[in-house]
């Protein structure tokens, strides 16, 4: 993770997901409140237009065969609110001819019923127009006419504003309350996370004890996973501590022996004693050196930081090289070392040096534990490496134990007890199966066949 990259906060994410929809909803509610306020104001004022047009229509009379009206002042007062609106009225006959009034107002064609309303633009003024169709009932004929009344919108808008402001204040109060609740709720919900973090931070980095903390279900799973990891780390550390203890014992003992033997020899004057001491010391030094190099390769194998480069390797190639390397020393020891490989390459995805190391250790082991004939074999389907010898073998009950570091199959053997542990580590790293078996189970010297068989998952 780059240092400049700031990971998203869970708290912030929750807030965004809760507050953005809430704000959107609030906005919709505000719009709706405004529309409702305007509607209410319109209906209230339309009622006034209706009453005004009715009182005008009641004053329409017939005079000299024509329609005529006397404008009732109350009708106009009714329409003029305290917002100083301008009021217009007109009387039209059934043919649309202007008869009387203070302005020529347009007609409304759409709509049904005797009373119709419309918003119109008239001489650069926004007007609300109400048209009432009525007629004068005479004994001879009926005469239809229209009363048109209009006023400017100031009163309506003032009423809309008043109504809307009330709703808006209520809505804002509710929104503030809701935001407060959400902030509090999210903080409360995330509290266990904070507790978990504090608990982890407050721990001594050396303790691997499980985390004891009551947490909600979702976080309890996280805690259990963490505790599992800690348990695995405890096991690893126990193994490591045992390994270090064993290793220091195994390294110190031969060094103490060397030093003591040298001291003893220096106290003596007999050159034969010196020679014997030197002989013993050389053997001991060789053994210690081998132990040290095996310890190092085991450490290297167990170090997760070193990422080995795996590639396609030819098992036959590795087997032949391992045999070639061990050839001269085996020959000097009178051991018949050979290799059996298919005539073509057997390719496996693996870490070259690790497989070479495994074979070196297996050949070495066989040599140290009394084999006189050792065969390195490469098999196909499934791909495998085998090292077979004719030595005393390992009893079945011991076969799992010998994989543990510092366990020695034979107390009289001259091994360090690390060879098979190294091979086991390499097999694990390759997801390969390591098996130890007897070559001739019922013979006096049953021999040992160590097989490293690659599996489907064998890609380290």
């Amino acid at each position: 993770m780059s240092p400049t990259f700031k990971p998203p906060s869970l708290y912030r994410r929750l807030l965004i997901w809760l507050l953005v929809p809430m704000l959107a909803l609030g906005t919709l509610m505000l719009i709706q409140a405004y529309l409702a306020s305007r509607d209410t104001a319109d209906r209230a004022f339309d009622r006034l237009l209706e009453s005004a047009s009715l009182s005008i229509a009641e004053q329409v009379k017939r005079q000299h065969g024509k329609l005529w009206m006397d404008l009732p002042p109350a009708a106009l007062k009714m329409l003029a609110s305290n917002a100083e609106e301008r009021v217009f009225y007109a009387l039209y006959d059934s043919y649309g001819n202007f008869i009387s009034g203070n302005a020529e107002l347009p007609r409304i064609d759409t709509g049904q019923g005797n009373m119709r309303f419309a918003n119109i633009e008239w001489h650069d003024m926004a007007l609300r127009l109400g048209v009432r169709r009525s007629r004068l009932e005479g004994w001879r004929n009926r005469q239809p006419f229209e009363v048109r009344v209009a006023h400017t919108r100031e009163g309506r808008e003032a009423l809309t504003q008043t109504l809307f402001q009330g709703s808006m204040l209520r809505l804002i109060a509710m929104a503030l309350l809701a935001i407060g609740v959400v902030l509090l709720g999210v903080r409360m919900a995330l509290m266990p996370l904070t507790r978990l973090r504090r608990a982890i931070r407050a721990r001594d980095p050396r303790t691997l004890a499980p985390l004891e903390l009551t947490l909600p279900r979702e976080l309890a799973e996280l805690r259990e996973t963490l505790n599992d990891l800690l348990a695995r780390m405890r096991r690893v550390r126990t193994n490591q501590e045992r390994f270090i203890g064993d290793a220091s014992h195994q390294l110190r003992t031969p060094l103490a022996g060397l030093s003591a033997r040298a001291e003893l020899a220096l106290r003596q004057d007999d050159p034969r004693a010196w020679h014997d001491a030197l002989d013993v010391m050389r053997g001991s030094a060789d053994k210690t050196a081998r132990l040290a190099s095996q310890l190092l390769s085991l450490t290297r194998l167990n170090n997760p930081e070193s990422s080995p480069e795996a590639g396609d390797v030819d098992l036959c190639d590795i087997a032949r090289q391992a045999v070639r390397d061990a050839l001269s020393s085996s020959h000097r020891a009178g051991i018949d070392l050979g290799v059996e490989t298919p005539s073509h390459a057997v390719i496996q995805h693996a870490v070259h040096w690790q497989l070479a190391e495994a074979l070196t250790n297996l050949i070495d082991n066989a040599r140290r534990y009394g084999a006189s004939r050792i065969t390195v074999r490469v098999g196909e389907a499934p791909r495998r490496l085998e090292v077979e010898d004719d030595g005393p073998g390992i009893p079945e009950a011991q076969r799992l134990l010998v994989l543990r570091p510092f366990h020695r199959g034979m107390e009289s053997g001259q091994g360090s007890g690390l060879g098979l542990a190294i091979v086991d580590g390499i097999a694990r790293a390759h997801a390969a199966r390591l098996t130890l078996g007897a070559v001739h189970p019922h013979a006096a010297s049953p021999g040992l066949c160590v097989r490293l068989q690659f599996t489907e998952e064998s890609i380290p």
Partner: protein
Amino acid sequence: MTPDTASLLLVEDDALLADTLYDALSLAGYRVDALEDGDAAFTRLATPGHGHALVLLDLNLPGRGGLEILDAMRRHDQDTPVLILTARGAIEDRVKGLDLGADDYLAKPFALDELEARVRALLRRRQHDDGTQLHVGTLHFDTLTQRFTLDEASLDLPPREQRLLAYLMRHAGEPIDKARLLEHVFSNETLGDNAIEVYIHRLRRRLAGSSLTLRTVRGLGYLLESEA
């Protein structure tokens, strides 16, 4: 050139190991120069004509590291054989060293026997390169006259056995499989696996009683070596 005149350069900073190797190699009849740090070795080896027949080179040195010295040496086009001695036993270091032109590699700790055997092998390989004489122990082959001598006595061989033995001598100490023999020794002839076994068998009979053995390494082939 015989071993007693060969001059070796030993570059090793550990005093105990350097002294021991100096004594051991001197006892074996070599002239040995010992250097302790990388810079001195670099100056000595970077100039052509230093006169050493073999360099034993440690990788972890004060001053310049062994790999750097080796690299510089090879860039000055020197073909003096180099035997690397190092505590870094890992394969990748070995590969790196061999890539840079080292001739052999010995991981510490090693047995003195092993070191002496490798030194002999490297000096012998060098003789092959510049001489007309091949030597493996008491067996000699003159490539000009095509004549073998074994324990000072002349060894007469039919042509196929002669070619076979000469090839095995060139690669002494290294197992050679039948496929390689068929390809390099009998490439013009159609010969079965069995025929090679017959010739090997005959050669073994001829070498019997000498210090030379012609071993079969199972799976790798035939190996000619001197027991001495």
